[in-house]
């Protein structure tokens, strides 16, 4: 059943509409390769910084156009959405003769100026990419909002955010292996942002809220921060061991749950733990930024994960940050 405006279209337009409506999916060749870029965008949006979001958006859209072997588009991320009686503008795709097509996205709501939710932003992004796909990949002379168009948008969304299809959907957290495909600078930037990500989430929370476990076996926000602090010491210790030895064995210290119990995380102060984590993180970043290209490839042996280079440890830390920032957010929501 076509949408109501179909009856007002010309014969040629109706033909385009029907072609568009008949295509319900756009298959990405290797969607997992784009997951780190989706994760980065999620993180960048949470920083609420336009520049970070612009860069992450550009990389994801470029990744999509490359994957689909279609020409790139110009991307502009703007602040508050324009609005009028007709509502708010979320995104815009424009093509002008003699200029590259442009996608504009707004990252803040019109009235409250709040940063839009990640999934909403992703939907808008894929909606505008969908128009580009119509012209560049499907070779449609026009790009109509058909049921097929929305299904194609959804098909891209669920390939890029596969967890979203599950009822217990989590934020777009990537694996260490996915992070390993992201440039080193971007991974370092992710590590650098984490203390601020944590601070933003913890700010204004009472000690009781930070100490509350959402379930008997699930850590409180405070325990998550203590864990990140101790893991930072542990993982940077592995890096230092690799730099001081030839292919050392990387020993897994006590299990994380044992640390929490032995070191009495529940008795500790969340702010002081965050402080200690931040200091350790600064030192890790200083160590990593001084590495030569060869040193990035030095490795150690881990019983479960096998050979791990310093480069991979950086990916592991980026994933570990994602995972625990998400856990902390859930803990504060009581989930």
């Amino acid at each position, binding site marked *: 059943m076509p949408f109501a405006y179909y009856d007002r279209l010309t014969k040629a337009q109706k033909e385009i509409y029907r072609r568009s409506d008949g295509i319900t999916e756009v298959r990405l060749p290797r969607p997992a390769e784009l997951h780190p870029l989706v994760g980065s965008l999620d993180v960048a949006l949470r920083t609420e910084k336009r520049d970070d979001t612009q860069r992450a958006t550009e990389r994801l859209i470029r990744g999509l156009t490359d994957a689909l072997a279609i020409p790139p588009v110009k991307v502009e991320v703007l602040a508050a959405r324009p609005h009028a009686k007709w509502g708010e503008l979320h995104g815009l795709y424009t093509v002008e003769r003699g200029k590259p097509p442009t996608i504009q996205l707004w990252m803040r709501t019109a009235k409250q100026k709040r940063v839009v939710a990640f999934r909403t932003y992703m939907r808008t992004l894929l909606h505008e990419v969908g128009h580009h796909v119509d012209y560049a990949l499907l070779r449609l002379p026009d790009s109509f909002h058909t049921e097929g168009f929305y299904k194609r948008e959804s098909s891209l969304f669920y390939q890029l955010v596969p967890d979203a299809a599950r009822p217990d959907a989590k934020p777009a957290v990537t694996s260490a292996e996915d992070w390993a495909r992201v440039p080193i600078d971007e991974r370092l930037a992710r590590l650098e942002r984490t203390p601020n990500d944590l601070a933003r989430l913890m700010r204004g929370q009472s000690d009781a809220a930070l100490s509350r476990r959402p379930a008997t076996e699930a850590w409180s926000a405070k325990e998550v921060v203590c864990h990140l602090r101790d893991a930072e010491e542990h993982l940077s*210790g592995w890096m230092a061991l690799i730099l001081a*030895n030839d292919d*050392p064995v990387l*020993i897994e210290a006590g299990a994380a749950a044992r640390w929490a119990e*032995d070191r009495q995380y529940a008795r*500790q102060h969340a702010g002081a733990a965050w402080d*200690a984590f931040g200091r*350790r993180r600064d030192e890790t970043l200083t160590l990593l930024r001084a590495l030569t290209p060869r040193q990035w490839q030095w490795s150690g042996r881990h019983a479960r994960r096998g050979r791990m280079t310093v480069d991979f440890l950086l990916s592991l830390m980026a994933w570990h940050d994602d995972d625990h920032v998400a856990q902390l957010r859930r803990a504060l929501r009581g989930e």
Partner: protein
Amino acid sequence: MPSMEEYAKQSLSDRRNRLDRTPDELAAAISGQPAATLAKRPAEKSWAAVEVVCHLRDAEEAFHARFQMFLAMDDVQLLPADADRMAIDRQYLRCDAREAVAAFGRWRAETLQILRKLTPEQWKRGGTHPQRGRMTFDDFLSLMCWHDDNHLDQLRRAVAGQP
């Protein structure tokens, strides 16, 4: 209090027995003491009793990890550890001393398990300590005996309010 060199002259079994006694000695030293006493530093730069116990707990975990490395590779270059920083970062003063002794006891039992299974050849394995140079399992056993003595003494002084 025997020095590390004097401990080195004792048999392996005597030294292991010394390590085996420490959890009980720690528990006895803090028994009946209120939390405030255990968390009171006798001087600005001297650890409180609870900090001493937490240090022993975390040092034991570190010894355990080093021993696993000695068994898995030849002559590892060991890294320095900053015990004072650990005391601040891990918030030792907020910990419960009795729980820390219990955790220390669990780690100590696991360390002794490793030390009881070593073959004569394995006792010679080791690594390079950042301050002390090359050290074997045998050397570490003496070091741990001395380390226990040293911190038990420090703990008893802290409980008595002496730095």
